[in-house]
């Protein structure tokens, strides 16, 4: 009888059910002490945080090796990013005057050409249009072809007008120009429309390639960093096999065991990020003189854009995050295998 009641109590305890006053009191006590584990966790977090840091400082060679690999992996996409940013800065400085040259049909009169110009002027992105009359167009043509003043052109009376369409350089993008060109062709009355491809547009294409490469290379190297940190943490777990075992045997929770490894990954990431930052700055410094010379030669005021506060933060932050993630994966995979 007594034994039965006793087991009932055991079951109640297991399920956290409390009916009697005494039990309720105990439950209350539990609730108060509920905060205690939180402060414990905070304390151990802090300890793991600085002890893993100290641990890495104590073995500078291996720390430098791993951070070096991470640093290079992070510096490459970072350098590419700076390259693109700088190309963009160059592009911004360059006079951007994309223009279309339109030749009307020969039968279109100057008056009709002017009407056509008005229509085109309403198309998006078009800033201004210059209409060259067949006469002045003739002069232009003579000049281009290299005919003398008195030489007669064949079919001189049937000359086209020329429309030079300028775009608003601030807002226009190459694909918009292409769309405008297609629309003009649809309007009729035109013999041909030519897009004047400038060096700036080629630069623009280059920037686009660069932007995509950052994504691709960035992703590849991010995966690389994950693998490096994951492998490093795996080795750390293996070398601390006994320690993990003992801590688990004397009542260490999985979270307790996991924590130092996570922080270790975090520090690898931080150091790697710092190194990447240093590498990038060095590269920028190394390049700044030739770039300044180039700017002077091309009569431009151009300062090499370097990593600002925000991108430095993003670089080091994402590196730390990758370190944390890498160790997270590794810890998840390998720590469970260490069971007493």
């Amino acid at each position, binding site marked *: 009888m007594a034994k039965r009641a006793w087991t009932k109590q*055991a*079951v109640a305890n297991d399920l956290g059910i409390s009916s009697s006053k005494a039990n309720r009191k105990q439950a209350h006590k539990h609730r108060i002490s509920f905060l205690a584990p939180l402060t414990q966790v905070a304390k151990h977090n802090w300890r793991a945080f600085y002890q893993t840091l100290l641990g890495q400082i104590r073995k500078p060679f291996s720390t430098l090796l791993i951070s070096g690999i991470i640093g290079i992996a992070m510096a490459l996409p970072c350098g590419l990013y700076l390259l693109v940013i700088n190309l963009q800065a160059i592009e911004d400085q360059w006079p951007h005057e994309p223009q279309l040259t339109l030749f009307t049909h020969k039968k279109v009169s100057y008056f009709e050409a002017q009407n056509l110009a008005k229509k085109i002027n309403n198309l998006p992105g078009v800033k201004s249009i210059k209409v060259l009359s067949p006469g002045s167009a003739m002069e232009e043509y003579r000049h281009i072809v290299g005919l003398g003043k008195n030489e007669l052109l064949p079919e001189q009376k049937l000359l086209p007008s020329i429309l030079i369409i300028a775009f608003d350089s601030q807002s226009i993008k190459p694909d918009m120009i292409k769309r405008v060109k297609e629309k003009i062709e649809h309007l009729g009355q035109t013999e041909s429309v030519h897009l004047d491809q400038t060096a700036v547009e080629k630069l623009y294409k280059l920037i686009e390639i660069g932007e995509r490469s950052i994504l691709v290379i960035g992703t590849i190297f991010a995966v690389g960093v994950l693998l490096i940190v994951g492998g490093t943490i795996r080795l750390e777990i293996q070398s601390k096999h006994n320690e993990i075992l003992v801590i*688990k*045997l*004397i009542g260490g*929770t999985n979270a307790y065991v996991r924590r130092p490894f996570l922080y270790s990954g975090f520090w690898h990431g931080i150091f790697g990020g710092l190194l990447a930052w240093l590498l990038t700055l060095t590269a920028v410094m190394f390049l700044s003189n030739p770039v300044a010379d180039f700017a002077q030669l091309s009569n431009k005021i151009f300062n090499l854009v370097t990593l600002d506060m925000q991108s430095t933060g993003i670089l080091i932050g994402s590196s730390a995050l990758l370190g944390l993630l890498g160790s997270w994966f590794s810890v998840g995979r390998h720590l469970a295998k260490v069971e007493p």
Partner: protein
Amino acid sequence: MIQFHNVYKSYPSGHDALDGVSFRLSKGEMAFLTGHSGAGKSTFLKLISLIERPSKGQILFENVNLKSVSKRKIAYHRRKIGMIFQNNLLLDNRSVFDNVALPLEVSGYRTIEVKKRAQAALDKVGLLHYRRKLPSELSSGEQQRVGIARAISTKPNVILADEPTGNLDPELSSSIMHLFEQFNQVGVTVLIASHDLNLINTMPYRKVVLDQGRIASNQAPLTNE
């Protein structure tokens, strides 16, 4: 305190280490678990500390059915037990003091409390003066005592010891057994697995003899004192 109800344990290899064991250890009792090598003594202790789970049967610890202790709660269960291992499992990259302080740190004691309790535990086993040494600098008897200090640093209600005198000479062995007697005298429940019959037979405690995973005899202590 500890109850086994018809407990079976077979390892994945197919070996039946425990074969229908029922057993009860009262609060504040001290008992020996004995039997030849391979009889299942270590398995018995591992089931209590949830290093292993029974294949069949129930184990109650402080009135809690261990079946209800989930994987995540195992750590908290182990904090209630002071475990001593045959190969003492000390960490050789930490000082004697840090080894003893480890369970306290793991359980989240305050720094002052950690220091106080670890020193008290080391003092109890008479090794406070070695606190700054590394375990490898101590003799095997001293190492075993450091292991005991670590087990008692959190003042658990239960001590489980697996061959604590494993490869020690008789004199050291009896001094270690004497330590366990002292803990028992202040109310700690003690269960010691040992095959050292010469030593055990001189001591007035219950002897549970295991043979091929079954309890062969469960002898109450002599009461002729």
